[in-house]
């Protein structure tokens, strides 16, 4: 964590993932009336730890297999719905709306963290 990039990295990655999750939730909301549509969601924690390199098993021998998710895994999974509907659609609007509002709030939180860190860096640079 010595570079400026390292200083900001968690929040920058979190912001990008939150924004990606917002798009997926918006897609679910747009498809609320489409028959056979399966609602999707982003596994935020898994994606963040893979981007940050957390939670991986150490490889101490070349015969060890690498654990965790590959670079091509986008972390998009199907949502398990609470009450199934007749038309095969798994979108539950209230669930999506709550997830969306939670995600928007967390996006704003990440943004706020970034803003504070940037202003902290600015004041350190200016030496005021």
């Amino acid at each position, binding site marked *: 964590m010595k570079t400026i990039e390292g200083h900001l990295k968690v929040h920058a990655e979190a*912001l990008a993932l939150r924004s990606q999750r*917002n798009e997926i939730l*918006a897609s679910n909301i747009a*498809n609320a*009336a489409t028959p056979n549509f399966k609602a999707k969601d982003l596994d935020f924690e898994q994606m963040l730890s893979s981007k940050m390199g957390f939670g991986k098993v150490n490889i101490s021998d070349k015969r060890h297999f690498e654990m965790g998710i590959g670079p091509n895994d986008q972390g998009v999974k199907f949502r398990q719905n609470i009450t199934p509907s007749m038309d095969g659609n798994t979108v539950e609007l209230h669930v999506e709306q709550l997830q969306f509002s939670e995600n928007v709030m967390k996006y704003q939180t990440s943004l706020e963290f970034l803003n504070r860190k940037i202003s902290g860096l600015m004041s350190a640079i200016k030496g005021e």
Partner: protein
Amino acid sequence: MADLKNIFDVAARGMSAQMVRLNTVASNLANARSVASSEAEAYRAIKPVFSTLYADDLEKTGISSVDVVDVVAVDKDPEKVYQPGHPKADKDGYIYMAAVNPEEEMVEMLEASRQYENNVEVVSTLRGLMMRTISMGK
């Protein structure tokens, strides 16, 4: 495969699909009490057919929107009413009422307009977030 680049494309397509649905409801309600002189001529309620449009061929990003692939007339028989004095009655004195259920249409209208609003709400929320993100670090 049409491009779905961002949230605006997703919501725009979703909204236009709901708009098609509202238009079919309007046509159905406008024709609800219309009569015809034969079963074939009678109006039947029309419904849009929604289908998911994915942003990528492999459906990996999870980004998708809706497309109206077809508008079909429902397979319902028009009501046959005996009204010999009616100007549109056939030779046996029957008229054929449009196969439209107004209650069903009203429910459909409410649902479509709510989902339209949901899309608008999503866009306005995310647009606000984008504006705040642009001014990051100021």
